[in-house]
């Protein structure tokens, strides 16, 4: 650098301001929405970047697994019981409907894969049918304890649709695991 006089200030100043403007644009249009869900210009949502940050639009909830359905029938002798649960990741949704010919004692509950986390029970009762939507509070197995409280054999039919991985059936015998496509 052998200039006799200092270089011209104006182009340098303009370049510096331009670089700041470019940076601010890149930050507010793309980087901040994508990384932090901070989207004051709304461009993150428009460009579909907001989902990258993990923040949710309230009506929509992304699901972490594949959509599956299951229809299963259980035969229960008087006072016979079983448990049938689906393995889901945290926030997994399960839409269910079950019905039986007789009153059934049931307990809809979740057991976490992580043994340190306590079980949670959502509904207990004695009825012939139930419908609902369950959101998994943690990763684990989620489903029902059913016991036939009638005096005759009965059939219970369970229909579900949701985002589960596999199911397990626990009876007096060994635990059965069912895989789904």
């Amino acid at each position, binding site marked *: 650098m052998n200039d006799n006089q200092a270089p011209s200030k104006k182009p340098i100043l303009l*370049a510096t301001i331009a670089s700041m403007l470019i940076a601010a644009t890149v*930050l507010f249009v793309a980087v901040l929405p994508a990384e932090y869900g*901070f989207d004051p210009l709304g461009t993150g949502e428009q460009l579909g970047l907001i989902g990258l940050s993990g923040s949710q639009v309230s009506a929509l909830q992304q699901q972490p697994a594949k959509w599956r359905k299951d229809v299963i029938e259980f035969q229960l002798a008087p006072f016979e019981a079983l448990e049938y649960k689906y393995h889901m990741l945290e926030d997994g949704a399960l839409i269910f409907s079950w019905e039986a010919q007789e009153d059934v004692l049931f307990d809809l509950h979740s057991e976490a894969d992580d043994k340190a986390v306590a079980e949670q029970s959502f509904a207990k009762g004695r009825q012939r049918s139930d419908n609902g939507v369950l959101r998994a509070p943690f990763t684990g197995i989620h489903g029902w304890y059913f016991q036939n409280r009638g005096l005759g054999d009965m059939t219970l039919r369970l229909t579900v649709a949701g985002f589960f991985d596999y199911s397990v059936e626990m009876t007096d015998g060994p635990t059965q695991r069912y895989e789904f496509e």
Partner: protein
Amino acid sequence: MPVQMLVRLVGSLLLLGFVSAAWGHDISAENAEFVMGLSGAAPGPFLYLGAKHMFTGYDHLLFLLGVIFFLYRPRDIVLYVTLFTVGHSITLLLGVLLGWQVNGHLVDAIIGLSIVYKAFENIKGFEAFLPWELNTRAAVFIFGLCHGLGLATKLQDSVQDGDGLLTNLLSFNIGVELGQLCALAAILLVLSSWRSRPSFQRQAFAVNTLLMGAGFVLFGYQITGFLLV
């Protein structure tokens, strides 16, 4: 010159090799998991991790690019890169050994500013606005210290105290230098062929403006992380 050709050859090969590795500025989740499972000295993995970290560490590389942008003589390139290397090695080693707790976002924000500084200097900003001359060598060394702190914060999560810490740390440091050499070779490859063109001087101003912009983006991104978390 045979040395130049060797540099170009090695640079190209290693560039191809590393480009196929996973991108990531932080130590990738899989690598971190693997490394945390290690106990005792594991020079191999840490050496590779150091190299990979530097080679994919775009903030470190952008600063290096700014530093060597207008350095033509091999002697100058070696001098400035050594200043940067000594700086970042000091803080990398001390930071991990002494367990310094520094906010990673804050350090990375300063690293972003280091890129702004060098690009601004490259477009003769300091020359135009400051009555006195900035000591570039001191600045590169001091920013090297900051870069090293950044490296330390990334490594601290993976390294365990106790057996083998020093070995692993030194391996990581050596790896960083090897990665830096590879990256430098690749950058010099591109830079020297570009500099031989007549359009270079004109384009250099624009490219340094963009480099400054990149530094501001990094600064903004990291400072937001610091403020939000």
